[in-house]
Structure formats: C-alpha cells, structure tokens
C-alpha cells in the first residue's frame, strides 16, 4: 500500500497553482489536506501524474466576517480551525455543530473545508451543510475569479462545476436570517465513520412560528448532497406540527433513490432519511 510515483509541485501563490494545474491537465491533482486523496493514493486507486500541494498558500487560509454580514472562509482553512472558530460558532452554529461528526480530530487537524467540498464525496457532511446554508463558492482559474452558488456546484457523483484548471479559493456563507433554527442529524456505523445517512436542516420561522423558508439537505443517499425540495416547499407557510414534520420527513424520504452498499440497503437508507429528517425538524421546532 505505497503510492505510485508522481511529480510534485508546491506553488507559492494561487496563480502559480493555477498555472501548474493548466499545464498538468488531466493528470494533475490538487493536494489540500489529503485526508481523502492520500488513502486513495495508498491503495493506488488514485495515481495522479502531478500533485500540486496547496500547503503553502496562506492566502487561502482564514475566516473573516464579510462587510454585508456572513462569513468568508478560505478554502485551505482546516476543519479544526472552523471547529474552534468563535466567529463560526456565532454566525453559523450549524457549521460548528457538524464539525465533530466529521471523521476524527486527527483527520480534522489536516482536512480542509475546500478540500472536502471540492472532493464532493456523497457521504460527506459539509456539502449538505453548505447546501442548507446557501453557501457561495469562490473559484479561480486562468480566466480569473467566479462565484458558484452551492446549488449549481454539485453536478454529479464526485463531480463539481469546477473546471479542470480551476481551484476553489473560498467559501462564502451568507448571513442567516434572524430567528433561523438549524439542526444536523446523522447515523454512522461507528463514531467518526462515513454516514449511513445524514441530514442538515435550517428553518426560518416568522414571528408567529409559521415557516418562511426551509432548507433540508440529505447526505449519503445519492450522487451528492440531496436537497429535499418537495419537503422544503411543503413546510413553507406551516408551523412545525407533528403532522407537518411527519409529512416533510416522508416526502424527503420518498423522493430519494439511495445507493446500496454492504452497510445499508436502499430501503434502510430511505427509512433512516425519514427518521433523521423528522428528528432534525423536531429539534428546530420553536
């Protein structure tokens, strides 16, 4: 279990990184935290010809408040930094809540927010969290900067809207409407394992408790994070009665076509999706 040979580059700037990426073409791969890539390389499932180590790009690190509110998090910010950020805890408690669910501390010490989001593992927690937070992803390529709303970012299994020569630079999390409530639920085989199913939920109730907006995203049930659109729409205008919660959970589960694996059948995943969606909605009930 030793990785195959590769050429190694450690650019000193994002521009250099993008140049290397465009030159490397199909055989080039970006190394962020490496906590998903390196295992794949040790198994020799991944055999990039050129590995571009983003470890020196401090310009991609850090968490700051945006002038219009909301947060801007550098793509190379580690899970640990996010987990411990007082800013994150204040602005987006959901993001803080989900961090301990991601693998283990030793992995979170290396793993990066951008790496996880760009890797687009269907069982990863962060894509679903970003989806309910309506995050905006900032990417840079040879033709400069562009922003991608999260709903356009995930286009398939391990596939994002990023061009082969683009790299993710930052994640922008828009301000969350006052009074919004959020929750994250997950079932995994063991503490820190890939989720069998997980769900992230945000609801925005008005002053008398009726729901103005709801976002529900499920993970490990499809090709990427899955927005439960029918359930979300169904909740708008209603209060979170037991009945409303049951209906939303049922709709969320019905609309899934979950994958099969040795740990969970599609039926089991659909069942868990309903249970966890209901539990999450119970928790955000005012």
């Amino acid at each position, binding site marked *: 279990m030793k*990785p195959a*040979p590769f050429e190694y580059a450690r650019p000193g700037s994002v521009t250099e990184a993008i140049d290397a990426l465009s030159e490397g073409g199909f055989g080039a791969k970006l190394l962020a935290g490496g906590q998903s890539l390196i295992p794949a390389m040790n198994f020799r499932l991944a055999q990039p010809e050129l590995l571009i180590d983003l470890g020196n790009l401090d310009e991609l690190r850090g968490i700051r408040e945006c002038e219009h509110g909301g947060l801007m998090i550098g793509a190379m910010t580690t899970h640990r930094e996010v987990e411990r950020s007082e800013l994150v805890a204040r602005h987006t408690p959901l993001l803080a809540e989900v961090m301990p669910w991601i693998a283990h501390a030793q992995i979170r010490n290396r793993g990066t927010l951008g790496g996880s989001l760009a890797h687009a593992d269907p069982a990863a927690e962060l894509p679903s969290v970003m989806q309910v937070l309506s995050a905006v992803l900032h990417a840079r390529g040879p033709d400069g900067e562009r922003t991608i709303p999260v709903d356009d970012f995930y286009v398939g299994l391990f596939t994002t809207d990023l061009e082969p020569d683009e790299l993710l630079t930052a994640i922008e999390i828009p301000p969350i409407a006052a009074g919004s409530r959020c929750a994250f639920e997950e079932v995994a085989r*063991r503490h*820190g394992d890939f989720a069998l199913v997980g769900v992230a939920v945000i609801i925005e109730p008005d002053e008398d408790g009726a729901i103005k907006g709801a976002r529900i995203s499920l993970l490990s049930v499809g090709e990427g994070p899955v927005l439960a659109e029918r359930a979300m729409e169904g909740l708008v205008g209603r209060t979170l009665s037991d009945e409303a919660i049951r209906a939303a959970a049922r709709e969320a589960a019905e609309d899934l076509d979950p994958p099969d694996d*040795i*740990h969970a059948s599609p039926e*089991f995943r659909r069942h868990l999706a309903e249970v966890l969606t209901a539990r999450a909605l119970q928790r955000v009930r005012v």
Partner: protein
Amino acid sequence: MTTTGTIGSLIGESAPRNEDHRLLTGDALFVDDVHLDGMLHVAFVRSDYAHGYLRHVDLSEARAHLGVIAVYAADDLGDYWAPGPLLVPPPPIERCEFRSATQVPLAKDKVRHVGEAIVMIVAESRYVAEDAAALVEVHIDPLPPVATTEGALADGAARIHEQFDSNEAAHVVQEKGDYEAAAAGAAHRIRRRFKMDRGASAPMENRGIVANWDEQGGELTVWDTTQAPIPIRNGLARMLGLPERQVRVIAPFIGGGFGPKIMMFYPEEVLLPWAAMQLKRPVKWIEDRQESFFATTQEREQIHDAELAVDAEGRILGVSDSFLCDTGAYNPYGLTIPINSQCTLLGPYAVPNYWSEFRLVFTNKPTVTPVRGAGRQHGVFVMERLLDLAASELGIDRAEIRRRNYLPPDAFPHDHEILYQDFAPLVYDSGNYEPALDKALEMIGWDQFKSELRPAYEAEGRSVGIGIVSYVEGTGVGPYEGARVTIQTDGRVCVTTGVGTQGQGHFTSFAQLVAGPLGVTAADVDVITGDTAKFNWGTGTFASRGAVVAGNACHAAALAVREKVLMTAAAALGADHEELEIADGSVHVRDAPDRAISLGDLASLANPLRGAVKPGTEPGLEATAYFGPEHGTTASGVHAMVLEVDRETATLNILRYVVVHDCGTVINPMIVEGQIHGGVAHGIGNSFYEQLVFDEGAQLMNASFMDYLLPTATDVPHIETAHVTTPSPLNPLGIKGVGEAGAIPVAALFAQALEDALGSDVGEILEMPLSPNLLFKLLHGD
C-alpha cells in the same frame, strides 16, 4: 523433590508489567523495526480471481524495472516449491473421513482464492516492488467460484482440488448415548438452523518477516511475527536442508496474534528465507492491511442444523447437531475448529445423549485457521440459543433452565465420551458453575431488572433487554512447554522459555511464578521468550495455554533452582538445610538474619572459576523443567448483559456487561481481566460490527478498515468482572487458560439480550454477526 521452608508466592498479585517500559517509549522491537544493511523489500502479485486456471505470467517488464532485484513465479522455485505441511492431522476418531490439501508457496496451475500469491518481487524498496508488481501480466482462465459453505457441496459445484471428487474436506461423527431414543420420549424438541459468518483476526500489527543469510557462518536468522517460533525454526531447517541450530527464528514483540499468527507455514514464511539465501542479502516483507484481508487466515463460517430434546422441566435429554464448517481454499489446520465447536457445544451442562456430525468443506475463500475462540463460540451459540428457545417454550426463566442443567460440583472429573482437539478424551477436570451464575445474576441485577427496570423502560418507550449465558472453554492443551531459570551473579533471575508473547503479559506472569520461590520480586526477573537461540524446545502460544503449560514449567524450574540455592547456601553458611529461609534476594538462617548470603553471591559460589567441586555437581544456580498436561483444563464462565435498541435507527447501546469467570488459580488478576476485556470486545465485534462480506464471485467486498469495522472505544462498554476459582487438578498451580474466554459467549448473549429487548414482535435471532442493516430487516421485514 522435597523442599523446605515456606515457599513465598506472588501468585494472585496484580504486579505491573515488566514489558511496559519498552512498549511505552517506542523502544520495543517489532519485526518491521528490523533494519539490516543492504536489506531488500518484497511485494507480491496476488490473484484478482477466486478460482481459475493460471495459464501464464509475463514477468519481463517487472524484471526490467529499475530497482528490481529478482522476480519469482512458482516455476522459478524449482524443487523448493511444495505444498505446506498438514499442521494438525485428524485425531483418532472412529468415524472420520479426512482429505488434506495445504497451501502452496506460489500458485502454480490454479488459483483458489482472491489474494493467493502468484509472483514474488524483490526490490530496493517496497515502493519500487509495488511499482513492479503492477507491471506483471497474469493470465487466468476463470472457473466458477465456490462462494458459500452450502454451495461447496451443491450438485455441479466446481471442484477446488481436482484430485478429490468433491469439495468435502472431512466428514466426522461423534456420538454419546442414543439421541434418537432419548428424543423420542421428549416433552419438547427444538430444532433450528444457526449461522455464523466470517471475521478477521485483525491484529493491529500485520504479519511480517525479515530473513538474513550469513554465508560465512552458514546461519539463517529469521524475524517472524509468529506465535510459534520453534516449530517455524524446525520446519525451515528441514525445508532448506540446514541444521536446526543453524537456523534462528526470533519472534520479537508481536503486535497481537489472536490465532492466525500461529498458522504455519504461510507462503511468505517459506519464501523470504529462501530468497535471502538465493540473493545473499537480507529481505523484508511486511504485510499491508489490504493484503492481510486475503493473505492472513480467517475464521468463523459455520451452519448448524441442531435439535435439543428436553423433558417437561426443561432438563436436557439430548442434543443432535449436524453442521457445515468452511475451511476456505486449504485445510492445513485439519479438524481443530469443528472439533472445538463439537465439544464446546456441550457447555457446562449434563447432556446424556449427543449426536454430532460435521462436514468440513473447501470454498474459494482465504484459508481458515483458528481465530480467538477457534470454533468454540459456534458451539456456545447453538447450545445457548437452543436453551433460550426451550426456556420460552416451557415458560421457564432463562437463568433457571441453565441452572437445572448444570453439571453438579461432584460430577468432576466428567467424561463426555468424545474426543477433544488435543486428541485426548473430552474430560472436564473441575468446575463449579452455580456460584458463577448466582454471582452474575446478582451483579447484573437479574430479578430487579425484571421486576422494576423493565416496566420502567417500557413506560418510557425504550427497548431494553437482558441476557445471561454460560460456557466452558477447553484450555491449556499439551503437548508441553519448557523453561530454564537461572540466577545470575548480580542476583537477577533470568527465565527463558519457548512460547512467544503477543501481549498476554508473559514477561510478568512468568516472572511472578518464578520470583515467589526464589524470594525476589517480579521486577527482579527477566523473562526471555520467542528466540530459538535462547530456548530450544516448545510449541507455541495458542489455545489459551501459555500460562497453564509454560507457567507450570517456569514454576517447576524455579523450585528446582530453589533447591540448589538452599544446598549451596547450607554449605556457605554452615547451616542446616532446614534452618534456611529465602527472602528479599538472599538466604538467611531462620532467627539469625546476620547469617545471610545474597543470591548473587550464591550464584558465584555455584560457578567457581578455580578449585574443586564435588564430583557430579552441576554448575550454576540453574534448572530447566518441562510440563506436559495429561489433557486440557476446563475454564468456564457466565456473561450477562443489558442492551438497548433504538428501533428507529436499528442501532444498539450496551448499558451493562458482566463477566464472572473461572480460570482456576489466577496468577495476575490485572492481566487476566485485561484478557477478558479484549476477548469481550472481540466478541462484540463478531456480533455486530465485524463481518467479511464476500459476493457471489467470492470477492471480498470489505478489505479495509473503512469497511471492516473493528469495535472502537465508543462501541465497547465498561465490563464488570468477578472471579470464581476452581483450581485445576491437572497442574501443580491449578491454573486454567483465559486467552480466548472473553470472546466465546458474546454472540449467544448478544442474540438473547437483543431478542429480549425487541420482544415477541420480532423473529428469532439465529444468525451472527448482526448489523444495523440486518436489524432493520428484522424490525421491518425484508
């Protein structure tokens, strides 16, 4: 041998371990830590196919690859290529048909399981060796694989070993009394089919071998992660045509064994020493985790069709069991596992009539050899489940039905009239089961759970269940072990023995056994194990036997040295043998502490450099002793558990776990409890987390720690332990084995507690391991 004075003893003390310091600081030597100048590194090309004809391998590209020193396929081994030995021939059972097919160094004409080694590559680094492995072209014509135990005997199943007319490796019947006659008059006959699937031993350290050939000295040195260095040494000497004394096998610190590290000879064990001699350079192979899922032996797949006959009071009239046992692609271990299952099924119970028949079958899966428990858990699972079902049919309390069937304390020695895996009759040496049951019931709060807790949980809508099971474990089997005890001139004591250690604390428990009689502390005793240059005789560490067999040898050798000490001291102090006492590292005359001499000085006196000694005097304060029991000892125990199920998510939480255990005399309670904790954790793994999942192509679907789930600290509960002590009459110290005990009854307990938690609306649990996925099916139907 008469001994005098009161013999001190450290037996029963939780002495902290002598081996810890090296392990805690990173100084302990493991096989992969061996670095030799000019050392080469080995990787293997392994089969992607479970079954097929090996037509052709193209090695040209690999051989041409920069940094590659040598590439070998089966044909390159010449006459050295030979199937491994049949390690355990079948015991002399009357009705026993047996066919042996053992593993080969490198696949020649056929591949018989995924991961079977086909080509060995030797290169300057493991990285390069793996690069070259990817350059080897292997051409295999696939054959239909035998992927299941039942499929092995199905009509038209492909024959894995074509010299045989079927995939049946053995057919064995053992019988006691007349089951059919007894069952005819039974009030209840409970018949079910039980299944247990495969698991991996998964020690944290994978296997590894370093071999070094000293051309000048004509000496071969092999560092091997084996549980049996001496038999490996003997076998290698034979295979390589070397004198045994010119082959040194060192099993240094071993990162866990759990059974498969006693398997011999693994292909790599045969090939590395040969390659070192061919190339005249040291070679190293360290199994990686992915390889370990194919190249290291596995266990546990069995299917039982069993029936229990009881009278109206739930007393056992007899048991009938017919089972299939999977041995994988080869069967070097003979019948050890199925005979363990067959014998352990009887448990602590009086079973007047027993019919037991099994078929061992070849499949296209990795070879099966014992893994912690070695078939015992299957027997316990079948018997305990049958008793649970009988209890519910009869409306008897689950603890009560066990109590009613226990062998009484005066029934020992108890002969079950069948043969055990050690070729000796299955005779229980001693036992006293009810006190253990009572203790466990009290600790788990059996009655209180039923009267108060259960209703309370139900009121909260929680699904919580309780379970209790009994088991016996045949341990401490022969043939023998030996030990040499030496007092050095610095007063320290040195013990050398043949059994290696994989974490069982031998450095400490053996030290305790020796320190007592010699009046020193365990910390004054250096134990040396696992090096054939240090001790020449022995078998290995397996079958929960180390403490029993080697432990008694250590103690006997210490007593012999004690006699020499007293004789030498008597002469030195001009005192009478009977007046002497040994304490605190010296010998003194009773009531005259100033008339004393240290053990170190006595050691010098016993090995004079000049002058005369009495004719016939043996030099030094040293003695060697051997111990071989007449047959195995019988440990026993009761486990109880309280388990909560989250019906919505099909996940579990173990709220309480209680173990009451009887392993005879306990040398070091701390170490014994540690062994039990580890065993229970392993059992929990085999009950809910660990399953090797093969598809219909006999392809393993979870050959990584991502998908093969070892229990973690959040999955294993706090385990409450207590001891009952029924010494064994079969050895002077009264010790029984403990290494595997923790793992044996867990699956049966798990099933019982789970059924209890889920209540009648869910089907019976007759299969292990479970998983949330299976639990979901159980709860919601397929």
